[in-house]
């Protein structure tokens, strides 16, 4: 037995050291590489660009933020983007619930697996190709309008098309956490609720929803952040509309004005941080 302590080694005797070793690589990566780059971006927002050379000039000022605030168009774009994000999230939640519920509570083990594959598979098809497929759907002569025509409806490129396409693209990100959340509710709890006399609606409201909320918020973090950062879909199906992502992209890559792009990028960052803080209490972050 004498050599056992040696075999167990230093690590065994010093849990804090173990913790330190476990934690430092991921923290170095995220804390140093990621946070530093975010911080540098934020700092850049307080600089300006020389309009001749497009070189960044390290002169501290608030001009970018002032412009952001004073030019109406950025407020319009922000509000529009937020609306889109909210609508996409609601649509996804409404569609995801029955599917997730069916998968978790109704389907047999075998079907569960099949459905899970069916839900996951579209994630592997290229995002761009899917968006372009929707472009064809929304075309004036496309299948969607061909089907809608008899009831006198016409859906062209625009905000509705953008919401539908984004909701389509992000749907798996909503179904997965919801499914995982519902799966954790033991069937016995549902039965107990019924045995105690609760009607279906009551069971859903009092038993299922409290479990579902965190999962829904977890999914909404995806739908929100993905929508706030998107600039491609709206170009493909959004008609003449633009979102925050387009404004950031245009300032950074087309206009070569990184400082202003950085200031603009603060808008979705602030929105997401506020949102994270708000949903944190619901336990959403553990459901991601």
């Amino acid at each position, binding site marked *: 037995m004498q050599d056992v302590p040696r075999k167990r080694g230093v690590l065994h005797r010093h849990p804090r050291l173990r913790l330190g070793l476990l934690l430092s690589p991921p923290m170095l990566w995220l804390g140093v590489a990621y946070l530093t780059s975010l911080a540098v971006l934020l700092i850049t927002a307080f600089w300006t660009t020389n309009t001749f050379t497009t070189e960044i000039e390290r002169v501290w000022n608030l001009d970018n933020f002032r412009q952001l605030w004073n030019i109406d168009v950025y407020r319009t774009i922000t509000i529009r983007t937020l609306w889109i994000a909210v609508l996409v999230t609601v649509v996804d939640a409404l569609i995801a619930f029955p599917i997730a519920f069916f998968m978790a509570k109704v389907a047999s083990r075998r079907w569960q697996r099949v459905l899970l594959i069916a839900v996951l598979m579209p994630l592997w098809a290229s995002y761009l190709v899917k968006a372009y497929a929707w472009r064809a759907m929304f075309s*004036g002569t496309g299948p969607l309008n061909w089907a809608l025509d008899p009831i006198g409806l016409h859906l062209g490129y625009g905000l509705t098309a953008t919401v539908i396409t984004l909701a389509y693209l992000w749907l798996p990100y909503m179904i997965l956490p919801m499914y995982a959340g519902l799966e954790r509710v033991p069937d016995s709890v549902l039965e107990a609720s019924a045995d105690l006399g609760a009607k279906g609606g009551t069971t859903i409201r009092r038993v299922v929803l409290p479990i579902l909320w965190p999962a829904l918020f977890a999914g909404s973090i995806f739908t929100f952040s993905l929508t706030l950062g998107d600039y491609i879909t709206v170009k493909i199906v959004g008609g003449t509309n633009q979102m925050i992502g387009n404004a950031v992209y245009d300032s950074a*890559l087309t*206009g070569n004005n990184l400082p*202003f792009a950085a200031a603009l990028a603060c808008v979705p960052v602030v929105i997401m941080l506020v949102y994270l803080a708000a949903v944190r209490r619901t336990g959403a972050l553990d459901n991601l």
Partner: protein
Amino acid sequence: MRSVRTLATAAAVGAMILTFGGCGSSDDNKSSNGGATFTPPDLPMKKSLGKGEGAVSILAWAGYAEKEWVTPFEKATGCKATVKYFNTSDDAVNLIKSGDYDVVSASGDASLRMIAAGSVEPVNTDLVPNYKDVYPFLKDRPWNSVNGQMYGIPHGYGANLLMWNKKDVNPAPTDWSVVFGPDAAKYKGKVTAYDSPIYIADAALYLMNTKPDLKIKDPYALDQKQLDAAVALLKEQKKNVGEYWSDYAKEQSAFETGDTVVGTTWQVIASAVDPKKADVEAILPDSGSTGWSDTWMVATKSKHKNCAYLWMNDIISPKANAAVAQYFGESPSNPKACEFAAKGFCDTYHAGDAAYAAKIHYWNTPTAACLDGRKNVKCTDYQQWTQAWTEVKG
């Protein structure tokens, strides 16, 4: 990323260089009337051509150095080519400074900045045998030469055309008023426009022809008042625009499905539209249009100048020039390329048609120093254009 959109932007940025040249560092800047009016650093020009160094490092826009014609070049010259693509003209300006590259394809908005910075040197066109074949109207232009000295080899150009669906648009339009004027309302929701700040120049060009009291002389030299007028026009136009296009496929499919019936286009798109689906016509209106013209240049710090010259000669050789022009969808700079291009290609692209080329206002980068030579006002620069474009789209 090597998308058409970035290409277009790059071409636009090329124009920017011109501006920079106009207002470059003060000691270089001997002001004169308009254009590139600075004295570039005094750099020697290559006097004679030696044997290839066996390697060449090419800095190019995507689509300008594809395997299809790079491989034959390598075989013929023994210069092993490494190709680096850049995304924007600004990228190109920064990368060429590094000294890692021998030769670069510069758009009008980048070329003068490179010249002013001394990153590229004068080109001895005598060492480029194919240069003598290049269309004369591409030589000694403000974006590729300074004081009569060529700084590069022009290799292709193109115009932004007016395209419409013949079935839906009557009578056939003859100028841009169909997208900017009152007629546009007839096609409400079916008008398209190019999705880039540089499209402001299209509006400015229309105003230049229709609103003389605005005194616009160059669509890339707009003071605040002129820019405001162009922006107002574009905002008015937006009411009729169904969508803005930024890539080939998007516009092509929009015309084929009938979602778009009239708007600005490139020849390559006009040719791609399936005539069975949409009978379209594309013209360069007599009142003129915007367009692009690109140039190959040699880096000052290049260690493979012989190979760089061989490349410049090769890329405008009839066969390669035809390949690039067809790949990218532009007019070649060498008339002999037409023998190697697909039948009718050069006619479609009006290669060599000097009168046609004269109607093109080549993309240039707007800068604070007015490109049209005005000294009493400050012009709006590309950054302001970018923000203005965001405002137009709302």
